[in-house]
Every structure is written in structure tokens, then in C-alpha cells.
């Protein structure tokens, strides 16, 4: 397990809240202004296409931060975090579907289109309530958190750990994927939920809404980052990293590691759910593909590339890998899977602390070199 600058007596960054929020606000306003206010003729104009992409990256970054919380700090490699993301997305998607109301292609007052043509007569009970935005928001957090709580309660209590736990989380997301693929479930089967029209009365296709969603995603990322940071810098964070390094020892100190794990796992799942909820209106679709084990593993590599155990590393990794994906799938389509595969191997073999770790090492080496230069030739460097 790589070393992590987790906490901090003496660590840098005394008042991060203002700083992080500041950075987020600056990013948001710069991008927003460059998109909306600066004319397209300007060299500085940011097209809406880029804004949407950045909004999507922000959601991914939030998801990566959530995963890093459990992987980097708690030592649980969850191969099922995509499931929490997708559940949050579905909760939001259900609201967006309900918001369409009678404006579906069949003009049915209540039922979403996919239910109409598959001959459903009434709305399933679990779709009720989602017409309210507030209810949907609660569900966005509650559903993934509840699943994480139940799964975690069972798993941590019986001390399923390590690779077993990873495989179980993978089985969990796989089972959910199969379940959501079933059309009988009433979530639109393979097609999922799509053809959204507006959110809170705002047209999803308008540029202003897109910028708004981007702003929300960035702020959610900032808030998620601060929350995660708050957790890892509290005593709870120290207990949690101690659990990662020696669960038995923590238990013998009188802590109940399973409760700590459960807390962090649940919080992380809720964060993933929020990320999913913000993601869905921006990409315009949510379907069971998000539950695919592959998506969850891909997410792990974002965190690994950025540097696990550092929250900003995770966020950075998410943005970088997805940028690489955008670029490669557009420019060298045949290479993408090779690149992704190579990324897995390289990161685990030579960059166990990711880019952030590499940067730190390089900085340290550079510093040594600078000081070393003043040393007398032939002097032995310890």
C-alpha cells in the first residue's frame, strides 16, 4: 500500500475550504463567461460541447473521489462503485422521465414511453414520488447509500476483506446489471431511460442549462472533495487509514472497524450517487451498461492513474483518463483499448502512487539535485 499524506499535524493547506471553493468558482465563472458572454468570434470562446464534456468530467472526478475514499483510505478495492453511480443516475433519470409528463411520443399522461409500447397499464409503485424533484434528490442519496449500508453491514460484519470483498462487489454490480437489463423490472431494460426534456422546467438542450449543470457538477465536486477531505483529516480518517494498515490492531485497541468501514463506504456510495445524478442530465441517458463490471474497473484505473490515497490525485486521474479516452476514441480508435490496458499495467508496475506520487518523487529528486549540485564532487550521497 502506498504511503499517503493523509493527515495532518503539520501537513500543508490550513484553510482549504475557501481555497477549493475559490478554485471551483474561478473555473466555473471563467468557463461560464467564456461560453455565454464571450462571443463565438472570440479566440477565448468555449463551445458548449466543451462545457458539457467538462461537466461530465466533473461528475467522473466526483465519482473518483468517492472511490478513493474507500480504496485509498479504507483499503477496500470496490469493483462495484459504478453500481452506486448508476443507482443515483437512475433516481435522477426517473425524475426526468416523470417530468416529461404527457409530452411523450404517445402523449400518455403518466406512463413513460417505454412502458406505453410494452403495454404497461399502470405505473409501478416504485415510480411514485419521483415526479417531485425533492423526492428524487433524496432518493439519489438514499438509494445508493442504503444499498451500500446493507451490503457493507453484511460484508464487514462477517469480515469479508481483500480480494474476496472486491469480487463480491463485482458480483453485486453484475447482478444489478442483469436485473436492470430485465424489462420486467420497469426501468426500461437495455435502453434504460432516455429522451429527457427538461429539468426543473429548464430545457435540457439549451446552452444555459448545460452551463448550469456544469456549474452544479463543479460545485458538487468541490463540495464532495471538501467532505472527503474533512473525513480523512478528522480522527475518523486516522482510524480509517489505521484500519487499512492493520484492521486487527485497530480492533484490539477497542474500535469497531466494521462501523467505520460502513460509515465511509456508505458516505462514498452516496457521493457516487450524486455524481451519477448530475451525470445523467448531461449525457441524456442512463442504462444498465453503467452497471457493467468493466465500467467499475475502468473507474478504478482513473484513481490509480491519478494517485490513490490523495483526493486531488483521484480527481485529476478521472479527468486525465477520460480526456485520453475522448481524444483516443476520436483520433486513434483502434488504440484505445491497448492504451487503457497498458495504463492498468504501467500504473500498477511502475507508478503505484500515480501521477501525483510521481510528481512528488520528481519534485523531491529535483530538490536533491539542486542541493546536490553544491556538494563537493565525489561526496557520497546517503
Amino acid at each position: 500500500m502506498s504511503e499517503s499524506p493523509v493527515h495532518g499535524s503539520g501537513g500543508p493547506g490550513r484553510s482549504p475550504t475557501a481555497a477549493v471553493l475559490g478554485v471551483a468558482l474561478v473555473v466555473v465563472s471563467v468557463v461560464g463567461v467564456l461560453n455565454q458572454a464571450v462571443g463565438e468570434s472570440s479566440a477565448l470562446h468555449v463551445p458548449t460541447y466543451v462545457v458539457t464534456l467538462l461537466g461530465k468530467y466533473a461528475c467522473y472526478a466526483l465519482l473518483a473521489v468517492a472511490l478513493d475514499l474507500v480504496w485509498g483510505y479504507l483499503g477496500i478495492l470496490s469493483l462495484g462503485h459504478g453500481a452506486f453511480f448508476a443507482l443515483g443516475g437512475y433516481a435522477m433519470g426517473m425524475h426526468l422521465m416523470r417530468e416529461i409528463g404527457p409530452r411523450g411520443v404517445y402523449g400518455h399522461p403518466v406512463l413513460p414511453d417505454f412502458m406505453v409500447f410494452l403495454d404497461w397499464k399502470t405505473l409501478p409503485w416504485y415510480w411514485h414520488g419521483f415526479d417531485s424533484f425533492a423526492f428524487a434528490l433524496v432518493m439519489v442519496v438514499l438509494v445508493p447509500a442504503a444499498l451500500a449500508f446493507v451490503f457493507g453491514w453484511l460484508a464487514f460484519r462477517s469480515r469479508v476483506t481483500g480480494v474476496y470483498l472486491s469480487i463480491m462487489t463485482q458480483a453485486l454490480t453484475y447482478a444489478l446489471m442483469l436485473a436492470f437489463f430485465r424489462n420486467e423490472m420497469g426501468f426500461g431494460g437495455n435502453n434504460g431511460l432516455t429522451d429527457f426534456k427538461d429539468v426543473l422546467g429548464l430545457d435540457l438542450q439549451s446552452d444555459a442549462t448545460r452551463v448550469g449543470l456544469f456549474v452544479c457538477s463543479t460545485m458538487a465536486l468541490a463540495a464532495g472533495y471538501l467532505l472527503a477531505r474533512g473525513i480523512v483529516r478528522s480522527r475518523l480518517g486516522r482510524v480509517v487509514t489505521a484500519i487499512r494498515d492493520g484492521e486487527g490492531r485497530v480492533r484490539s485497541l477497542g474500535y469497531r472497524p466494521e462501523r467505520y468501514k460502513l460509515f465511509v463506504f456508505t458516505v462514498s456510495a452516496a457521493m457516487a450517487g450524486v455524481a451519477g445524478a448530475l451525470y445523467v442530465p448531461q449525457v441524456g441517458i442512463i442504462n444498465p451498461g453503467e452497471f457493467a463490471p468493466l465500467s467499475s474497473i475502468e473507474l478504478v484505473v482513473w484513481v490509480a492513474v491519478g494517485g490513490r490515497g490523495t483526493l486531488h490525485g483521484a480527481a485529476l486521474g478521472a479527468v486525465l483518463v477520460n480526456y485520453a479516452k475522448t481524444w483516443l476514441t476520436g483520433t486513434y480508435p483502434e488504440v484505445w483499448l491497448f492504451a487503457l490496458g497498458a495504463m492498468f499495467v504501467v500504473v500498477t508496475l511502475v507508478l503505484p502512487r500515480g501521477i501525483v506520487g510521481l510528481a512528488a518523487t520528481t519534485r523531491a529528486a529535483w530538490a536533491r539535485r539542486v542541493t546536490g549540485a553544491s556538494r563537493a564532487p565525489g561526496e557520497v550521497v546517503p
Partner: protein
Amino acid sequence: MSLVGPEVHTPTLLYLDGVSVSFDGFKAIDGLSLVVDETELRCVIGPNGAGKTTMMDIITGRTRPDTGRVEYADGVDLTRCDESEIANLGIGRKFQKPTVFEHHTVDDNLELALAGRRSVAASLRFALGPEDRDRIDELLATVNLRGLRHRLAGTLSHGQKQWLEIGMLLAQRPRLLLVDEPVAGMTAQETERTAELLVGLATDHAVVVVEHDMEFVRSIARKVTVLHQGRVLAEGPMSVIQDDPLVNAVYLGE
């Protein structure tokens, strides 16, 4: 059973009665009975596989005995408690291999071990108070690590880790200390200091030491329990044990 009049001198803190446990048919502990008083320094010796570590595991709740009773203080049945409950009852354990949190500083290691509320919510709000700081300073002095308090525990030497672990043990304010091979890998000087520390602790704690190093045992032991094949082979003062032919045959003579 050699009950040493619990009501008479100091009251009994720990009481094992007819405890057995087996793994895959192998009897690791076989009808073990043991009594530890409230202030006492007890050494447990025995050859490899005698069941010393398993005994510790049973006391701390890591392993559940198949049969037998394990009672603590005011009649608490330890077999019904889980590990963290047992720890919170005041039973501290130092493992055979030093297990400190290598990615935490020495300070943080001690802070994590400080007695106090262990709930998730409490730890989320926790802030170090002045008393806690004093206590940590005091502990650092006790285990002689004051100058290293900001070092990551992983960078300490083996002996320093052992001490840190003992410090963490003390931070829990335990009534019973279970110490597994405390001087393994220590220099002679370190060993000597450790012996002093343990003897000092035994004045107001119960201390159970499992050790291989007979020299060390001789230097601290008041009362020794010899385990063999999961049961008590002999028990008594070191001088008596040394001359016991049975003990010599299975252990000391080697």
C-alpha cells in the same frame, strides 16, 4: 487446579476454566485453566505450538473456545464479547510481531490508542484536548520516544516499534496487559529497559508476558506458567519451575 486463593491477597482479574479449542482436529488448547490476579506479572512459557498465542487469542476474543469459561473482573464472560468490547473492558494486547500503524506518526499512533469513546460519530468530531496532549507527552516519556514523535512509525527501528506498541497499550489504560514476546529482536540495553518497564507496570496492572527468552523471563518473573500441548504443565515460582524435571524434559532442556 492451582487456585492461589483469589479472595485472600489481590482479587482475581482473569479466570480461565477448562478451555479447549481445536483447529481441523488439532487440539491447540486442551482443558486449559489459568488464574491471573489484579496486580501480577505472570510469564507464560512453552515450546512452539504449546498454545501460548492461541491462549491470548482466546482472551482477546480473536478465537472462540470450543468449551470452557473465560471470566474477567466482575464476572464478565469474555467468550460472549467481541474483540473491541474486550479491548474496551481494559484488556490490552501487544502482538508478537510489532504492529503499529506504519503510515501514521508516533503521535498519531498514541492518539488512536488513547482511552476514550470509540464510536464513529465521536471520532468524526474528535479534537485533541489539553489533557490528551499531556497524556501523550507522558507516554512518550515512558517509552522513550519523545524525540521521534513526528516520525512515521514505519521508519522506527524494531525495538522502537516494540516500545511504541507498549506505549499504545498503556494509552488504552488497561487493567490487564497481554504482552507477546516483547523483547524479540531487541538489543541487550533495550531488553533491560523493557524489563524495568514491565516490572514497574505490574505494580498497578496485571501483566501476562509470553516469552521465549529464558534470560529475560528469569530477570522479571515472579510466577511462571508452563504450557505444553495446550495444557498447563507446571506453574509456580521460577526457581521451582527451573528444577521441575518434567519441564526440563519438554522445554528447558532443549
